[in-house]
C-alpha cells in the first residue's frame, strides 16, 4: 500500500477507535502473518493494520472505514491455529477481538450466556459450571474462542449430547460487511431477550453455519447468545498435580468412563449405534489410536517410547470411549451402566485392561469435557494433518475412514507412524456422525508441501467423482468455487449471499465465496 494511502487510513482508524488500539509496525504485523503451518506452505502475507475495537459500534466504524477505502479485513477470534485468518493479500486489515472479551450475561434460568468474541471456552465453562451448567469444548483446546467454536466446525467432545457447536447458537449481534448492524432472533425485537435464535422469517444463522461456517466472509459477530445445558458435575473442574502431569477425576457417582475395544472399525461403529439408540452417555467417541498417545504423553520421549512399544496399538485400536453421566441422579448413572454393560456384551466388546485404563483415564479422558491438551497433537512431530472430514452417518464414516487409512498407509513416509487413524464422533445421539482421518506429520516445509499437494490432488479427484467428504470446506471460498457447480450449484447461493452482503468484497476475501466487485 502506498505511504500516503496508508497514512490516511491510519489516521481514520486512530480517530475512530483510539491511537493505542491501532497498530501498523512491522514487528506487530509479524505476529499476525502466519497460520499454524510453517511459512512456505501456504505463504500468507503481512497485514497492513491490526485494530482492537472495543465492541459493536467501534467494529462498525472500522468496517465502514474499510468500505470507504476498499481495504479487505479479517475478523479474528482467538486466532488459534488460524486456518484462514492469516492475510492472503497485501493491504489487509485485521479486526482483532481482544478488547471484546466479556461474558455479557449468564441467564441461569433460561440457560444461556451472551459472549463476545475473545471469551474462551474455558472461561465460559468455568462460569457455567459454577451455576450447574456446561457447554461443549473443542478438542483443539478450550483456550479457543467460544464464539468461534460455535460458528466454525464445532466438533465437541460432548457433541453426542449437545450436537455440533452451531446447534447451540441463539441470538446474535452482527456487523455486516457493509457496516450495518444486524441483530438476529429475539434480539432484533428487544435488548432484553436473546435466548431465541430464530426470527419470524428465514433463520439468518444459516448464513454463518456449516461445516466450517462463513470464515469471516460475511462480517463479524460481536455478541452471541449460546445455549448452556444442565451439568451434574462439580462447580470447579477437578484437577490435581502439576503441569504437564495433571489428572482430573470427576465424581464417580455421576461420571464413569469406559474404554471398550473392538476387533474392527465396523464393530466399533455398530456399538456406537447401539449406545446412541439407547440414548445414554455424555461422551461417545471412537478415537484414532494416536489420539490416546497425543493427549496422554507428557514428553516427546514418552510419546515415542510407548508408541514404539506398541502400548496404544495393542490396547486401544478400534476402541470406543464412553463417558456415562448421571445427568439427573446417581440412579441414572446406575441405569446407564446397566444398559452399557448389556450393549458391551451383546456387541462382544471388551474393556481395555485395568492397567491401561488407570494409566490413561485420570490423565487424559476429561480433555473431552473441558479440553486443555488438544495442542499436544503437535508435540511428537511438530504438526499433524487431517484427511476427509465427512459429516454424515456413523456408518458412512466407516467407508471414508477405510479409504483414509489406505491413503495414509500409501503416503507413509512422509506420513509418520500411526495406527487406525480414524476418528468417528457421534452427534445428537447418533443422528449423525462425523469422521476425520488424523495423522502425524513432521513439521518441515518439504513433507508438508508434499502432503498438501497430495491432499489437494485427492480433493480434486473426489470432486471429479462427485464426492464431497474432505477437508475442502475448511479452505472456504477456494473450495466452494470448485465444488459449487458439482453439488447442486450451491456456489451460486453462496455467491449470491456474498454479493448481497458484501458488495465491496472486503470481508476476508475470498471467503465465503470468491466474487468480483460489481464496479
Amino acid at each position, binding site marked *: 500500500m502506498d505511504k500516503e494511502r496508508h497514512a490516511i487510513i491510519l489516521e481514520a482508524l486512530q480517530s475512530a477507535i483510539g491511537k493505542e488500539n491501532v497498530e501498523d*509496525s*512491522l*514487528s*506487530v504485523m*509479524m*505476529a499476525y502473518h*502466519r497460520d499454524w503451518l*510453517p*511459512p512456505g506452505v501456504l505463504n500468507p502475507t503481512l497485514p497492513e493494520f491490526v485494530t*482492537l475495537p472495543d465492541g459493536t459500534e467501534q467494529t462498525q466504524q472500522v468496517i465502514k472505514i474499510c468500505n470507504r477505502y476498499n481495504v479487505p479485513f479479517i475478523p479474528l477470534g*482467538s*486466532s*488459534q*491455529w*488460524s486456518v484462514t485468518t492469516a492475510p492472503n493479500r497485501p493491504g489487509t486489515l485485521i479486526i*482483532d477481538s*481482544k*478488547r471484546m472479551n466479556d461474558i455479557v450475561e449468564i441467564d441461569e434460568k433460561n440457560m444461556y450466556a451472551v459472549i463476545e468474541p475473545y471469551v*474462551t471456552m*474455558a*472461561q*465460559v*465453562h*468455568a*462460569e457455567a459450571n459454577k451455576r450447574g451448567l456446561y457447554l461443549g*469444548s473443542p478438542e483443539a*483446546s*478450550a*483456550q479457543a474462542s467460544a464464539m468461534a467454536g460455535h460458528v466454525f466446525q464445532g466438533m465437541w467432545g460432548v457433541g453426542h449430547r449437545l450436537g455440533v457447536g452451531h446447534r447451540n447458537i441463539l441470538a446474535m449481534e452482527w456487523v455486516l460487511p457493509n457496516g450495518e448492524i444486524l441483530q438476529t432472533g429475539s434480539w432484533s425485537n428487544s435488548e432484553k431477550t436473546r435466548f431465541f435464535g430464530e426470527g419470524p422469517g428465514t433463520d439468518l444463522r444459516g448464513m454463518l453455519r456449516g461445516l466450517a461456517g462463513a470464515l469471516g466472509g460475511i462480517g463479524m459477530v460481536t455478541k452471541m447468545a449460546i445455549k448452556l445445558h444442565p451439568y451434574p458435575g462439580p462447580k470447579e*473442574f477437578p*484437577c490435581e498435580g*502439576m*503441569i*504437564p*502431569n495433571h489428572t*482430573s477425576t470427576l465424581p464417580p457417582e455421576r461420571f464413569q468412563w469406559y474404554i471398550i475395544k473392538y476387533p474392527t472399525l465396523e464393530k466399533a461403529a455398530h456399538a456406537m449405534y447401539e449406545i446412541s439408540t439407547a440414548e445414554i452417555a455424555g461422551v461417545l467417541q471412537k478415537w484414532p489410536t494416536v489420539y490416546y498417545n497425543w493427549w496422554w504423553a*507428557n*514428553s*516427546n*520421549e*514418552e510419546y*515415542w517410547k510407548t508408541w514404539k512399544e506398541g502400548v496404544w496399538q495393542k490396547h486401544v485400536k478400534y476402541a470406543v470411549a464412553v463417558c456415562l453421566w448421571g445427568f439427573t441422579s446417581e440412579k441414572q448413572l446406575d441405569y446407564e451402566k446397566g444398559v452399557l454393560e448389556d450393549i458391551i456384551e451383546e456387541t462382544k466388546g471388551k474393556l481395555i485392561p485395568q492397567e491401561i485404563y488407570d494409566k490413561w483415564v485420570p490423565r487424559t479422558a*476429561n480433555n473431552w469435557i473441558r*479440553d*486443555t*491438551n488438544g*495442542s*499436544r497433537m*503437535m*508435540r511428537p512431530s*511438530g*504438526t499433524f494433518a487431517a484427511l476427509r472430514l465427512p459429516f454424515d452417518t456413523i456408518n458412512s464414516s466407516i467407508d471414508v475412514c477405510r479409504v483414509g487409512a489406505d491413503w495414509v498407509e500409501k503416503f*507413509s*513416509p*512422509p*506420513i*509418520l*507412524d500411526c495406527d487406525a487413524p480414524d476418528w468417528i464422533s457421534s452427534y445428537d445421539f447418533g443422528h449423525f456422525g462425523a469422521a476425520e482421518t488424523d495423522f502425524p506429520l*513432521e513439521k*518441515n516445509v518439504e513433507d508438508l508441501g508434499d502432503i498438501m499437494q497430495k491432499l489437494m490432488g485427492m480433493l480434486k479427484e473426489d470432486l471429479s467423482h462427485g464426492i464431497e467428504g474432505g477437508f475442502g470446506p475448511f479452505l472456504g471460498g477456494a473450495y466452494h468455487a470448485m465444488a459449487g457447480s458439482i453439488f447442486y450449484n450451491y456456489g451460486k447461493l453462496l455467491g449470491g449471499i456474498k454479493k448481497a452482503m458484501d458488495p465491496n468484497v472486503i470481508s476476508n476475501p475470498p471467503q465465503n465465496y470468491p466474487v468480483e466487485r460489481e464496479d
Partner: protein
Amino acid sequence: MAKKKDMVLPKDPRYLKYPIDEPFDPRWTAWNCSRCSCCKWIDSWRVKSWKYARICPQHKRFMFDAFSAQGKCDLALAVIDGKMKWTDDPKIKDILFQCTMCGGCDAMDKGIRDAEVLKMMKWMREQYINEVGVLPDHQPLVDSVRNYDNVWIQPRTRRNSWAKGMEIRDPNKEKAEVLLFVGCTYGLSEELKATIKNVATILKKGKVNFGILGSKELCCGSPVEKIGVVSEFERLAKSNIECFNKLGVKTVVMPCAGCFGTIGQEYDERISVKKNFEVLHITELFERLIDDGKLKLKKEVPLKLTWHDPCHQGRLGRPYVPGKELEGVYEPPRNILKAIPGVELYEMERIKEYSWCCGGGGGVFTAFKDFAQWTALERLEEAKDTGAQAIATSCPWCESNLGNAIKGMEEKIGIHSLTDVMMSAL
C-alpha cells in the same frame, strides 16, 4: 508373505527426544510454535472464573499478539531467517522488554510440548542488546553492577549495615555450614531491613551454623541476566560459585526468590563450573527447622492471608526435565503458614506453576513502572477476592512491587513477608 513395514519415525531426532542437554536452538523453539495460544491463558483445567483465566501480563495489558510468547516466536523466526533485523522497528524494544520474564507462558507451553520459550526470549534480549544496546533505563542498573557489584548504586560496604550488632560470622574467617546469601535488595533496602534481620534472627533461634559475606557479597546476577547483559552475569556467576565452593559451605540459602532461581537454576544452565553445595530457598530451611523441632511457632498470629508464589521460587525454581512435573518451592511456605496458630490461609485462583506474576521482574520494575504497577494491581485484586486481609510472599521484588501498588489503592490490602509473620509467631 508381506514384509512388515518399519515404523516411520521423525527424521529430526529432536522430535523423538527433546535435546535438553544440547546447546539451545532458538529457531527450533520458534519454528514449532503452532499458534495454540496456550502461552496466553492458564491451563484450561485450572480456569475457575472468567476473571482470572490469563497467564501473560504483557498480553493481557497490550493485547496485540506480538506481546506474547507466540508473537515473540514469530519475531524470532523473522530475525533468524533474515526477514527483518532488530533495528527495523523501535516497537521491538517494547515487545521484548515490557515483559516481566515471569515464565508463565513457558510453564503453560510445557503443558503441551517440550519447549523452552523463556530461554528463546532471553536469547532474543541478548541478541537485541548486542546489536542495539542496553535500554537507556537499564543502563544505570548495568553500571551499578559493574561498578559496585549490586543493582542499587550503593557502596559495597553498605551491604553489612543491616547486620550491625547481630554478630553473624564471616565464613571467610570462621567455618560455617550454611551461607546466608542475602541478595542486593534485602541487603541494601532500608524498607526491607527489618525482614532480613528477622531472617537472621530466626536462623539463630534455630541454631543454624550460618554466615554472611557482608560487603564481599556480589550480586547473584539475576537482574543483568534478565535484561540480556549476559557477560556481566557470567562474571558474577563464576565468581560466586568459586567463592561458595572455596568456603566449603554445605548449603547456600537465600531469602530472595530471584537469587534462588538464579543461583539454583541459571548458574547450572549457563556456567560450567560445578556447584559443591546445596541451594535452598529460606522457606525450605525454615520448614526443615520446624519439622525438626528447632523452631516452635507458638504465638497466635490472627491473620487471614493469601500466599503469592514468586515466579523464581515456583515455576522457575527447579530444573526443567521434559515430561516431569514443573516442581517449585510451593509447599514449604504454605506449610509454614498453616503451622502458625491463628493464620488462616486462603488460596488465590492462580497459584503455583500458574501463578500470576507480581510485575516486578525482567527489568520491568526499573524501565516500565506503569506496567509493573498494572500487573501488581491485578494480583492484588485477585488477593482481595479471596477475602484475605493480606498477601504474603517471600521475595523482595514481589514485596516491593506489590507494596508500591498497594500505596495507590483506595481499598488497601496488607502485605507481609513470610519471615515477618513467622517472627511474630516465635
